């Protein structure tokens, strides 16, 4: 199966081309084509995972093959396939989630005029992400990295008649551009020193290279890419706005494709990020801070998709923190489990939005009765996200905490624990408000169609059980395949397990008190902490800061440049022209316009020339 891995990204890409050029008119056929292509990719991915479990490829002995995409003397760019357990896990997650999202979209997007186009975009999105996952070099990664950005642009702006949607997709693209800028510089630095983009060759060369300053620079530059793509502070501003896209897209972006790419890149370039202590520290702290910032913001938001967006940001911060403190296994494990329950949460939210056509959680309520499947799957997802034993999130989050603790990063550990508490709180705040509470007037919600609920159920299943593959309960689990240098079987640290569970339960309990039982007034709290609430509600005013930077600084500089161009530069050149013209206007009086005057001058000149030439005294011949 591994030798057929190239088909995984190619099939959805083919589906994209086929849909766009051939069968756009036939809506169902388009959807089926996209789903079929993705299903085959998924099957191949499963095959690859199976082979890897058989020992077909390990982290130390990956399977790699490539063709030359561009071959110049001194510059060899490959289009390659690199399959190791890391890639295989990612392939499985991406194809699985994408497949479910596509199936779900059949129901969700039903009746939309751009139905086929939507599926073609989804195919392209998945293809780009899969191409990124199988990449064997930084260049290819960058290539697909940008394509992922493009697809997110297309999909976020899918409702292009909505000004907010086009604003959001532009923001997403441009923010990601900043990341790409750093990423590109970073790989240029790597190329400059090592002369290659290939992961394997770099992994061999980097440890032997001892210019710390250089590696720090390259590492941090490359890391700017993930900061933007995985929506980490300070380039996270696009992620909440990206909710303008249709909900299945949000699920895809948040669970499997877009944001996961950043974490995946850090995992892929683990050698680089851990070649220097500083870089690893930066990665860890950016992750940790983002997790905290996002969690605090999520506490007060009232748009259900936004809450989840900040939750994603927070969880991605977790993963990066894990990678930063040195545990590839924990980071990737959390990425995997998170993909399941975050996709679940989003698809469930989509189901709710589909039913109520609202997004503000305080305008909903009591959906428990009308939408049972959605309600219970959401609860499962929220529990998993909060890290309640024995759901998936518990195991993966726990591993991160253990990793932070054992690496001695106590500050990060404390921070992560705090975030765990907040996560539980804001997730259940949403759950209680939306599904419990009173039904508002005029709410006619009903359960979504089967194409939407079946993916929910499947994802709920995985949200419960996928954690066991990496738990200390199994002997050869996730950790024995996906690791850095050598496998680290997790050692159960019961103290951390218990404390994190207690924290999560405390969060849930607090949410219940405030929003479920309403024994503590949310309003009163809000009044009491008004400034903090405003600050958090406005997301620390970071968007406003950027807007100010762009509107006031950048645009004004541009306007000044434009003025300079039109008046100074053009003025100088037009001035030369005007000068010539003015000189002409003065000199033209020499030209009397009188014929005989001209003739006179001509003959006077003839005389002078003759004098000069003919008279020996004047130098004549």
């Amino acid at each position, binding site marked *: 199966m591994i030798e057929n891995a190239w088909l995984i990204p190619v099939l959805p890409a083919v589906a994209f081309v086929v849909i766009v050029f051939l069968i756009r008119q036939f809506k169902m056929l388009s959807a089926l084509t996209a789903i079929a292509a993705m299903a085959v990719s998924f099957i191949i991915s499963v095959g690859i995972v199976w082979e890897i479990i058989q020992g077909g490829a390990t982290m130390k002995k990956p399977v790699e093959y490539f063709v030359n995409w561009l071959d110049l003397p001194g510059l060899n760019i490959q289009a390659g396939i690199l399959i190791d357990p890391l890639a295989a896990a990612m392939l499985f997650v991406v194809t699985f989630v994408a497949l479910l999202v596509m199936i779900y979209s059949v129901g969700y997007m039903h009746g939309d005029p751009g139905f086929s186009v939507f599926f073609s975009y989804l195919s392209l999105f998945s293809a780009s992400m899969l191409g990124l996952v199988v990449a064997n070099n930084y260049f290819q990664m960058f290539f697909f990295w940008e394509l992922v950005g493009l697809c997110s642009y297309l999909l976020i702006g899918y409702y292009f008649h909505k000004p907010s949607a086009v604003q959001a997709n532009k923001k997403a693209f441009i923010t990601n551009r900043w990341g790409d800028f750093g990423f590109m510089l970073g790989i240029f630095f790597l190329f400059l020193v090592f002369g290659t983009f290939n992961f394997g060759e770099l992994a061999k060369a980097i440890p032997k290279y001892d210019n710390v300053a250089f590696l720090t620079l390259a590492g941090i530059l490359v890391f700017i890419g993930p900061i933007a793509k995985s929506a980490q502070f300070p380039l996270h501003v696009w992620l909440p706005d990206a909710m303008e896209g249709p909900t299945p897209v949000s699920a895809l972006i948040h669970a499997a494709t877009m944001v996961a790419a950043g974490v995946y890149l850090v995992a892929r370039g683990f050698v680089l990020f851990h070649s220097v202590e500083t870089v690893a520290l930066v990665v860890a702290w950016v992750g940790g801070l983002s997790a905290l910032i996002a969690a605090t913001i999520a506490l007060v938001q009232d748009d259900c998709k936004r809450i989840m967006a900040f939750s994603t940001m927070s969880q991605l911060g977790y993963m990066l923190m894990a990678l930063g403190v040195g545990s590839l296994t924990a980071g990737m494990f959390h990425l995997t489990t998170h993909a399941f329950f975050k996709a679940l949460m989003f698809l469930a939210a989509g189901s709710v939005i589909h039913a109520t056509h609202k997004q503000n959680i305080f305008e909903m309520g009591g959906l428990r009765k009308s939408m049972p499947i959605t309600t219970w799957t959401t609860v499962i997802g929220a529990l998993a996200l909060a890290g309640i034993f024995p759901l998936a999130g518990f195991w993966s989050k726990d591993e991160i905490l253990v990793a932070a603790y054992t690496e001695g990063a106590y500050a990060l550990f404390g921070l992560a624990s705090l975030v765990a508490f907040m996560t539980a709180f804001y997730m259940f705040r949403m759950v209680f408000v939306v599904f419990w509470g009173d039904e508002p007037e005029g709410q006619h919600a009903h359960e979504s169609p089967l194409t939407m609920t079946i993916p929910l159920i499947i994802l709920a299943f995985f949200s419960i059980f996928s954690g066991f593959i990496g738990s200390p309960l199994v002997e050869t689990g996730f950790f024995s395949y996906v690791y850095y240098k050598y496998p680290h079987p997790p050692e159960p640290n019961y103290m951390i397990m218990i404390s994190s569970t207690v924290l999560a339960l405390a969060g849930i309990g607090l949410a219940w008190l405030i929003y479920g039982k309403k024994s503590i007034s949310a309003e009163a709290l809000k009044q009491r902490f008004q400034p903090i609430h405003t600050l958090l509600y406005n997301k620390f005013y970071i968007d406003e800061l950027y807007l100010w930077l762009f509107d006031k600084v950048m645009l004004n500089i541009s306007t000044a440049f434009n003025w300079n161009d039109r008046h100074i530069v053009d003025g100088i050149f037009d001035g030369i022209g005007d000068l010539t013209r003015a000189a002409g206007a003065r000199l*033209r009086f020499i030209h009397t316009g009188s014929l005989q005057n001209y003739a006179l001058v001509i003959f006077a000149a003839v005389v002078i020339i003759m004098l000069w030439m003919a008279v020996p005294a004047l130098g004549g011949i």
Partner: protein
Amino acid sequence: MITLEHYLILAAVLFCIGLWGALAKRSAIMVLMSIELMLNAVNINLVAFSRFLTPDALVGQVFAIFVIVVAAAEVAVGLAIVINIYRERQTSFVDEFDWLKW
């Protein structure tokens, strides 16, 4: 004994008189007439050269014939222009033709 120099000096005198007329008279027709005078002076030169330097070749005379042809054409076109201008401007004085200056 009349030598080549005599003819050349005579032609020069006539040429310069013609030049004076062309430069200093107001009437356009007069300018044209003066130019004819100058051309004829040149023809004298050509024929004189032909006669005294290469009497057997006659090329100078051929040249003079061509000059006459061109002069005839020139005077025809020139007078036509003068008449045209006169129709437009009611004048044939060259110093009033100043619209070369825009």
